[in-house]
């Protein structure tokens, strides 16, 4: 009985916390009940939360669950990388297509901010490659901006040859490492 009650309480509190996280300002009445949250730790942990979304299970004493919690914004924004020739930072036709797709996705996700990483293959001089990586990231950024993406949403960083995607020492690996890589924040 008491276990069931504790579990119910946990659920309610979890819902509260959830509501707090999603709908800002909700659940102001609950603060006195929050400390127990720490205690029932041995109870099943994050799994019940997921179930709580689908059939809202009769939350009797819940005062304001009015705005049904929408699914958290875990919708992944994924952007395609663009690739370059050795010692080049100019965009190919294929790269422009990829960047146009990326711009469309960014238009659909106006809150997404991105970091463009410029990368080079291992050949050549580190410092020069850092400069080259900077230019590659910059090329991609400029093209996105020209398509209408606000520059304030884009940051760039060059890793030169120091964070390769492929560890091989052949053209197959090198061609994958000469890229502008998009990280969504």
């Amino acid at each position, binding site marked *: 009985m008491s276990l069931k009650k504790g579990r119910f309480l946990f659920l309610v509190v979890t819902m509260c916390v959830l509501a707090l996280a999603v709908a800002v300002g909700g659940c102001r009445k609950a603060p006195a009940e929050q400390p127990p949250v720490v205690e029932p730790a041995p109870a099943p942990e994050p799994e019940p939360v997921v179930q709580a979304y689908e059939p809202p299970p009769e939350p009797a004493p819940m005062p304001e669950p009015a705005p049904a919690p929408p699914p958290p914004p875990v919708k992944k924004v994924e952007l395609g990388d663009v690739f370059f020739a050795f010692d080049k930072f100019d965009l190919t036709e294929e790269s422009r297509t990829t960047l146009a797709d990326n711009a469309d996705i960014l238009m659909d996700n106006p809150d997404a901010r991105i970091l463009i990483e410029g990368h080079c293959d291992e050949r050549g*001089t*580190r*410092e*020069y490659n*850092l*400069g*080259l990586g*900077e230019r590659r990231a910059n090329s991609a950024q400029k093209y996105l901006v020209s398509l209408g993406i606000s520059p304030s949403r884009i940051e760039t960083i060059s890793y030169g040859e120091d*964070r390769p995607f492929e560890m091989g020492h052949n053209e197959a690996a090198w061609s994958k490492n000469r890229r502008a890589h998009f990280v969504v924040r």
Partner: protein
Amino acid sequence: MTGHFLRNATFAIILLSITPADALAKVYLDINAPATRKLPVGIPVPVPLEGTVPDPVLSGEIRDVLAGDLTFSGVFRVLDPLLYLEDEDQAGIRINTFLFDDWELINSEALIKTGYSVGPSGDVELEFHLFDVFQRRELVAKKWRGTVGQVRRMAHMFANEVMERITGGDGIFLTSILYVQSGGGGKEIHLMDYDGKNTRRITDNGSINLSPSWWPDRSGLIYTSYKEGSPDLFSLSLDGKERRLTRGLGIDVGAKISPDGRTIAFMGSTDGNPDVFLADREGRVRNRLTVLRSVDGSPAWSPDGRRIAFISDRYGSPQIFVMNADGSDVQRVTYDGNYNTSPAWSPTGDLIAYTSRVNGRFGIFLVNPDTLEARPLVGEAGDNEDPSWSPDGRFIAFTSNRTGHYQIYLVDREGRREIRVTSGRRDKFSPSWSPR
């Protein structure tokens, strides 16, 4: 996690006695003459003194350092111990305690004798003598006391004395080399003696740390680190004090300090465009020297501090240029090949070493910045990159992957003698040879 690497050096080596300077300060060999013959030198095994128990490990290490230094110098030819006639058990190390004839017979023009004694507390005393065999006289003698960990250092110190006495120039055997080592996802700055021994880790932050460069007084270094996010410049003194010199987005990399120690040249970027910048030693007052929409970077000071070599791909591919330290009078220096990078101006001022791509592989080249005459130095095998000059301008350190992993090599400026000083499976690159 820095500053632990100098612990060894905190105990001073004590000079115990010194032979009065020889009035005849004759220089035996001119190391700058084009085809100098090598001076044959005998280096018998160091002997225990004053009742010390023989220690073959200790004596072997002392001899290895002396023979290694003098062979590397290119000035000496160390005679094979199999030739030595002297009775090791009978001969002493001081004049009149051995026979010069034993050495003259095998044409050993110079002779280095060493004795060691180990005190009750583990302190080691080393006594070195350099003799002119044909004139039958002592040229220099030194006696030092230090810890067991300082034995190599004391031997390097005497090798420097020998160089100075024989050639009139300062030896480089106490210099060291900073480099970057890959491992565990990070790249950390390391330090080693010039001969690859006594390696120490300088940074330990798990991030990417690059392009170390010495302060001219050898008190510390500047390097680039991603540890705060974007690549910025940090200054680290050898006693562990660190200052961040630049911040913000964009790259700041490849810092080189002017010979007078007052100005830092580096590749920075604004709006994604890399250029050569100058800053004061605190990293303030960013002053942009290049203005084109090209990659301009890798600055290298001329020894008089008035000119800066740098790379630029303003004509489509990276080439070496030089300019005045205020950005004026830009002149192109390299014309051969379509990929010439990482310039290093020799301490003697007459050459710029750089990396050049030939047939898809990278080699070290030298170019005279006045005549624009260029010649290959290293490039028979593998990729060879990142030249850095020894402080006397006679040698170049570089990295090569000819064994499958990047290792640090040393070569003389004629490209004749080449030695690998590191090993292991972790890549090591970007050597920076210390001042004296």
